[in-house]
């Protein structure tokens, strides 16, 4: 009887050990996955000391409803402000229509994004609005912090609904890496 009890205890120990090892393996795997996720997952980082004043602006030379610089859009290169590999930035933008009574609309996209049409207004690229207001009052401004996705080269493009719009872009405040 004593011998039986001893074997039983041993079996329990083994079983316990196996389960423990199994759990340990699972935990190790979970840790490894978590580590990989932590390494790969993008996260926001504050830019310690953003530049002062405006970073970029365009008050003329627009062609309405065009993203590319060659056709009258606005191309801005952020690569010197953020680390290589940055996916997006958070930045303050200010848009005003000082000279007429057109509607106020603006769009942004990462430069040369093949999934977004070059003509955002005609193509109803509503998801890519930077701003939209239905006011027809001249001098009405639109402003706020926006998330703007960047191309691999750190560039973004902007388009407007009216050639009379002025756009001002401040220095980026945060970047997603």
């Amino acid at each position: 009887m004593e011998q039986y009890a001893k074997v039983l205890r041993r079996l329990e120990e083994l079983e316990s050990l196996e389960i423990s090892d199994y759990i340990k393996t699972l935990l190790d795997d979970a840790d490894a996955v978590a580590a990989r996720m932590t390494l790969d997952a993008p996260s926001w980082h504050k830019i310690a000391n953003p530049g002062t004043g405006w970073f970029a602006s365009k008050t003329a030379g627009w062609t309405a409803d065009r993203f590319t610089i060659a056709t009258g859009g606005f191309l801005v290169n952020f690569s010197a402000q953020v680390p290589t590999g940055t996916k997006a930035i958070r930045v303050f933008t200010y848009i005003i229509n000082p000279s007429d009574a057109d509607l106020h609309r603006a769009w942004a996209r990462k430069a040369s994004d093949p999934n977004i049409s070059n003509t955002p207004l005609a193509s109803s690229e509503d998801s890519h609005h930077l701003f939209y207001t239905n006011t027809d009052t001249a001098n009405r401004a639109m402003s706020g912090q926006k998330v703007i996705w960047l191309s691999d080269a750190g560039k973004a493009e902007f388009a407007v609904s009216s050639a009379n719009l002025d756009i001002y872009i401040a220095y980026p405040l945060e970047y997603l890496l």
Partner: protein
Amino acid sequence: MKFYLKRYPDGGWEYSPVGLDGEPREGFEIVDKIPQDIRDKEPGGKDYQETVDPQDVKIAMLEEEMATMKADLEELKARKV
């Protein structure tokens, strides 16, 4: 920091920083800093005007209309010849 800068005949401008690639941009000059006259006209600058005289807007619209009519007239004249 260097900037691409382009001025337009209507007094407007366009500028943005030169990035790490430093690629040339046709039609733009490269400057070390944004000229003060532009900085003064920007929001926050001493010459920035947040409002526009409605009469100026009307004048601009009429001038644009007149330019269009002149162009149409020239086109008609050319066709007649």
